[in-house]
């Protein structure tokens, strides 16, 4: 296996020759390096600072549908979350099909991909709302599927999750929604809780909406309120499930700016699920492109935006012509 500092390229099975220049002037991976790669990652192997390139196992039967999936994962540092050969099906509908993905600590990562490729299913696996049929999901090196219920509930306290529509509790006003995790998980008094809640609500621009019920808020306000609630326990990892869905471009941009500001302030691993390329250009530090239940390519945002993979190039530049069609 060959290690490069930041950017590694390897032609995938059936991938057409890379056109023109090599972005970033990176040395191409030699054929013997590819053949020397292990076919599947070892779950027991230490993951921090893992080798620069891991490759997904070649699909059985060499079907064409994975021809753009190089599985390249550029080294991005210590992972907060790892997916190891994860398979998940709902009935006969196979969603994740041998997903290997690593999301780095301390950065804003984006999982991008066309609709229906399993992005939201990924989030549910991270927090143990779904379990893989095969494979493993590691959070800070701990296997989520093998956790006992009590450990799982404890582990979830590391997470803040912003659901698509905020998922605010309809029976509580905004203040109580944001205060809820603090009341359940801490021994703080009401005064201290009030300070934290007001600070978080002010951060997201909802300082004067304490008494409003969720049904009195606009879509953007509900998302911001959900963001405030997700942050209230100072989580190590914050997950955003399509934060831009249903928002106009300006509010999407403002929400992205907010995500960036709060990440700069608090740190931690932020994982954003989206198919909005403009959002990715604005905030992503690390990008994983997901399609048909596998990673097409993954790495630092700049490397992905400069990728010569036809699928990645088409998707990230929203072109009509390319491997991705309407099917």
């Amino acid at each position: 296996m060959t290690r490069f500092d930041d950017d590694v390229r390897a032609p995938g099975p059936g991938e057409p020759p890379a056109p023109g220049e090599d972005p970033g002037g990176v040395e191409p991976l030699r054929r013997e390096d590819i053949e020397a790669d292990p076919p599947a990652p070892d779950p027991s192997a230490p993951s921090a600072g893992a080798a620069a390139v891991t490759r997904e196992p070649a699909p059985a039967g060499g079907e064409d549908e994975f021809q753009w999936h190089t599985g390249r994962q550029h080294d991005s540092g210590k992972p907060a979350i790892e997916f190891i050969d994860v398979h998940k099906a709902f009935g006969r509908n196979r969603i994740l099909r041998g997903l290997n993905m690593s999301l780095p600590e301390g950065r804003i990562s984006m999982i991008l991909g066309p609709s229906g490729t399993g992005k939201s299913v990924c989030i549910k696996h991270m927090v143990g709302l779904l379990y893989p049929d095969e494979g493993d999901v590691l959070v800070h090196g701990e296997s989520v599927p093998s956790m006992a219920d009590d450990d799982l509930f404890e582990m979830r306290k590391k997470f803040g999750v912003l659901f698509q529509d905020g998922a605010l509790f309809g029976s509580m006003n905004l203040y109580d929604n944001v205060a809820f995790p603090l009341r359940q998980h801490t021994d703080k008094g009401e005064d201290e809780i009030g300070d934290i809640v007001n600070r978080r609500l002010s951060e997201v621009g909802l300082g004067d909406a304490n008494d409003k019920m969720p049904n009195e808020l606009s879509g953007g306000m509900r998302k911001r309120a959900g963001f405030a609630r997700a942050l209230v326990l100072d989580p190590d990892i914050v997950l955003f499930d399509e934060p831009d869905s249903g928002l106009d471009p300006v509010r999407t941009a403002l929400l992205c700016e907010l995500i960036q500001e709060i990440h700069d302030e608090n740190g931690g691993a932020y994982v954003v699920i989206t198919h909005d390329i403009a959002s990715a250009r604005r905030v992503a530090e690390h990008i994983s492109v997901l399609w048909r239940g596998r990673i097409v390519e993954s790495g630092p945002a700049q490397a992905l935006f400069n990728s010569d993979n036809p699928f990645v190039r088409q998707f990230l530049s929203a072109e009509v012509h390319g491997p991705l069609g309407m099917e």
Partner: protein
Amino acid sequence: MGALLATPRGWVESLGTLVKFFGRVVGEVLGLRVLRFFGEALRQAGILILSSALVIWSLCFIIGLQCGIEGAYFNRSVGSPAYAGVFAAWCDLRELIPYAFAYMMAAKVGTGIVAELGSMRISDEIDALEVMGISSMTFLCATRLLAAWMVLPFVYIAGIGVGFLASYIAVVQQIAEVSAGGFSLIFWMFQNPPDLLYSLIKAMSMATIIVLVGCYYGYNAGGGPVGVGTATAKSMVVNIVLVHLLGMLGTQVFWGANPRAPIGG
């Protein structure tokens, strides 16, 4: 053959899932894990009292009137109007007040639970609870069951009182073929404290099932708003069937072998 067996197999599977769910929720209450969310249980108890007690008592009143009227006219037709209290006592305490209570519980509380939990499910609120590290089943289902157990015995006993009052009004005031004292003598002769206890057990079994069925269909709702509507309708059907099964069993167990009537010495 396989296709023929698929439907009953599906029913058995659903029943197994239902029973497992009931077991988990009841276990959360009996194991006292629900006490972690005692505040929520109290809130649910408050909601039950404020939003459901009055409608339950209203239906009990109407049913009490009905038992009184039926008893009075029947006993008059057989030449024993003074014995209207027998019919009223049995009709109220043993059969129709438990059913009236259960019907209104199913219609008001059970469907309310399905709609509330179902909409929480489809708007990701239940997932939000889970990712906050809170057991949604304990927080949403076990607290509702505990609230029902804390509040409903009193609501039901008050409902019996309302039914009795209505029967008294119908027999003594409206039809007025028996004196107040005569009615009371017979009415109280044909019931005693164990009957009240049995009636309470019958009604609380119904209430428990109604809350659990509501929680099951709401908690497992899917398929958007239409799915929540379908789940609500299904829960009502299941509740009505189970309520009548429990009513029949209760009557058989408590008063089948021994009708507990002061007849023939």
